[in-house]
């Protein structure tokens, strides 16, 4: 059983390794929660790669995540290492154009361009 320090290290590594990272319930292909599915659809619009990590049945990791972010619910989204809540936060950011700016900057650093969508 990993202790909370090693869980925090694992989360820190995962956040660093993925420009867009979603901690959710279920996987990208088989989401097991409406809000996780909604978040996957949300990011599909942008054409950038994103990772979904299923923590549905990993309560210790969910607890560690909640403590690290001071945020009680899933999904939890990180972009470029920054915690950004869920689509209730990202939706308004997208409407104001802030999210596209953030994503463009984050992926430019890595030389990744969005695939064409629409």
């Amino acid at each position, binding site marked *: 059983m990993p202790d909370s320090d090693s869980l925090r290290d694992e989360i820190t590594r995962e956040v660093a390794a993925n420009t867009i990272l979603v901690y959710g319930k279920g996987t990208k292909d088989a989401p097991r*929660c*409406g*809000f996780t599915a909604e978040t996957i659809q949300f990011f599909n619009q942008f054409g950038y790669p994103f990772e979904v990590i299923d923590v549905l049945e990993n309560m210790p990791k969910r607890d560690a995540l909640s403590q690290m972010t*001071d*945020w*009680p*619910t899933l999904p939890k989204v990180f972009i470029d290492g920054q*915690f*950004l*809540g869920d689509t*209730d*936060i990202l939706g*308004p*950011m997208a409407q104001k154009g802030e999210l596209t700016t953030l994503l463009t900057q984050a992926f430019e650093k890595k030389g990744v361009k969005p695939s064409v969508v629409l």
Partner: protein
Amino acid sequence: MINRDGVVALIRAQMPDADVVVTDLTGTMDHYDIRVRSNAFAGKSLLDQHRMVYAALEDARQDGRIHALQLKTEVPSA
């Protein structure tokens, strides 16, 4: 489960000035869309605004009366 007035009461207990609109998303009284407008949000990031509402609803989420919620917060415009 919790009724809509119950949700409003929990939020107003922390933010007495809040305008709260609660919609039952599934008809099961535990999946809610909640819109909160309060001066208590002034100067706070959207993340912190949502944290304030989650805190007000903490007990009801912990004991399962609320299973899922989507949230929109704003500061009154005038």
